[in-house]
């Protein structure tokens, strides 16, 4: 079975108030599909961190979620500035967020590490000046 249910979410780059909307929608949808609570939690947090990153750094973007029988794949696409040094960006505590973002509780340099922590596979495809695509996979019942 390679058929999947596909869902698309647009992430508004302008405000932190609506940031998280896509993650909350995703969480509700995964609940309706009856996925295990821990799987839902991991996917929702990974999605939220991705969403926040797109709002903070890229002026928004889009998320596509594919739900298969044995796994869920999230693809986050933005046309922001790109990540110059992916290895550095993956280090816990490294952040380029502004002070105003930090005052909201973000910018701890844990976003990308959390996305990796909560997913089984994660790949970052980024070109400076063009944008970033992040693909994350979580296997169900593993």
């Amino acid at each position, binding site marked *: 079975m390679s058929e999947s249910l596909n869902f698309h979410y647009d992430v508004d780059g302008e405000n932190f108030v609506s940031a*998280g909307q896509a993650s*909350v929608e995703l969480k509700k949808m995964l609940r309706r599909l009856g996925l295990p*609570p821990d799987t839902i*939690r991991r996917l929702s*947090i990974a999605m939220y961190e991705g969403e926040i990153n797109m709002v903070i750094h890229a002026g928004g973007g889009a998320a596509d979620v594919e739900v298969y029988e044995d796994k869920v794949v999230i693809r986050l696409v933005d046309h922001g500035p790109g990540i110059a040094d992916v290895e550095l960006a993956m280090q816990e505590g490294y952040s380029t967020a502004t002070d105003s973002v930090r005052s909201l509780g*973000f910018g*701890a340099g844990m976003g990308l590490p*959390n996305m990796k922590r909560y997913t089984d596979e994660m790949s970052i495809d980024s070109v400076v000046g063009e944008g970033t695509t992040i693909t994350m996979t979580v296997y169900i019942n593993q």
Partner: protein
Amino acid sequence: MTVRELQETFGFGVVAMPQPDRTVSGGYVGDLLSWVMGRAQADQVWITIMSNVNTVAVASLSDVSTVLLAEGVTLDEELVRTAEEKSVNVLCSDLSAFRLAALLGPAV
């Protein structure tokens, strides 16, 4: 212990309590949201002074059983509605995060 029992036992204020029967098991203290998402576990009480809209989102996504706002912090009215809509419990107290953790440590 349930969220309602926690609230009653320690006399915490109720900001929103849409799910009073959720079980509280352990806790986490922190204000940096990604740190909380990376470290807090489902069903814990999350003690924080961060009280913007993202607090409610992070509580919902992390599956903590309740937020406990320390130092007399509270949510504005619109956020209270958001918390209720998202089934996020939010309690409050005038005590510091340090005092609250010391108080709740043996109980949950």
